[in-house]
């Protein structure tokens, strides 16, 4: 049941999906991998929307060079663990939800336990090895996986529903080269909020998800496009001969 306080807090969105939708958000538990550029808008918007439990993982410390995009963290947080900084902000944004912060590196060994039983896994990572691990665990546990990635003014997002859509390895068989990419905060804002929108839609059961579609954003042209994606029958992660053992290197 929603309290009077919650009714008031979420009044403007209850107009969209009713008490029932808000209850669904409240009962939900979302796992966010990363509290950086994408993790900031994703976690803030899911917190203020009233997602009942948010667990996020990050291993890093706030650096001055993070602050152009990682809006969970401010100047006074430089030197603090991102988990500490982010936890404080999210609790301030919404004291009515539960936020769990885990300060660790996601590896093939700990990912199953870290993710646990959640209603959605959100990709806010900056590298493909960990994205592939998240994809594998999402497939294995049959949990929706909300992918996003950015570089410069460009970004991409898609929603993976295990058993229904192609997976991340169908789409990206080979990861793009690892490099320190230039990035502007607004791009993280665009893609992170697309991902958060997908999570909310999935939880309340409204709209059409980015299922089987890769949303691509070109901020310089102010144009979005989409690419239809299809399942790869030979996909090592979700194809008919998929193995359950993630072959990815630990990171």
């Amino acid at each position, binding site marked *: 049941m929603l309290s009077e306080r919650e009714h008031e807090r979420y009044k403007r969105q209850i107009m969209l999906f009713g008490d029932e939708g808000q209850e669904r958000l409240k009962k939900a538990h979302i796992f966010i991998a990363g509290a950086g550029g994408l993790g900031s808008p994703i976690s803030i918007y899911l917190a203020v929307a009233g997602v009942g439990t948010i667990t996020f993982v990050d291993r890093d410390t706030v650096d001055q060079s993070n602050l152009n995009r990682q809006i969970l963290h401010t100047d006074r947080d430089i030197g603090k663990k991102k988990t500490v900084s982010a936890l404080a902000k999210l609790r301030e944004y919404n004291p009515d939800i539960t936020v769990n912060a885990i300060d660790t590196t996601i590896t093939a060994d700990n990912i199953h336990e870290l993710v646990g039983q959640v209603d959605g896994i959100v990709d806010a990572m900056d590298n493909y090895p960990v994205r592939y691990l998240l994809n594998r665990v999402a497939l294995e546990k049959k949990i929706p996986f909300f992918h996003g990635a950015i570089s410069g003014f460009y*970004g991409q997002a898609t929603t993976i529903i295990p058993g229904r859509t192609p997976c991340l390895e169908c789409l990206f068989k*080979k990861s793009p080269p690892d490099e320190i990419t230039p990035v502007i905060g607004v791009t993280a804002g665009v893609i992170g909020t697309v991902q958060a929108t997908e999570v909310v839609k999935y939880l309340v059961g409204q709209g059409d998800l980015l299922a089987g579609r890769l949303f*691509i954003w070109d901020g310089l042209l102010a144009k979005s496009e989409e690419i239809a994606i299809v399942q790869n029958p030979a996909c090592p992660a979700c194809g008919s001969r998929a193995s359950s053992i993630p072959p990815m290197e630990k990171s």
Partner: protein
Amino acid sequence: MSVKVRFFARFRELLGTDIFAEPANDTPIALLVAGIARKNPDGYDAIFDEHGTFREFVIVMQNGKRVETADAATVMVADGDEIAIFPPVAGG
């Protein structure tokens, strides 16, 4: 015949987009795209490896349908085709 080639994101910055080409019959996708990309060495290097084949992470689409990078050297373009070349990004 007339074929439209669309480069996205960083590839667009390096090579432009919505390029109309008039390839001969039986031109494979890779050959057509390489011919266009050669006008900018940085653009070419971003898309093709030292053997002149598509880098594996590049997404190649023919009329909205994915073409495996390994097959792009043998899949022919047809009149009216739209070829899209997209670089996935990695940051977060």
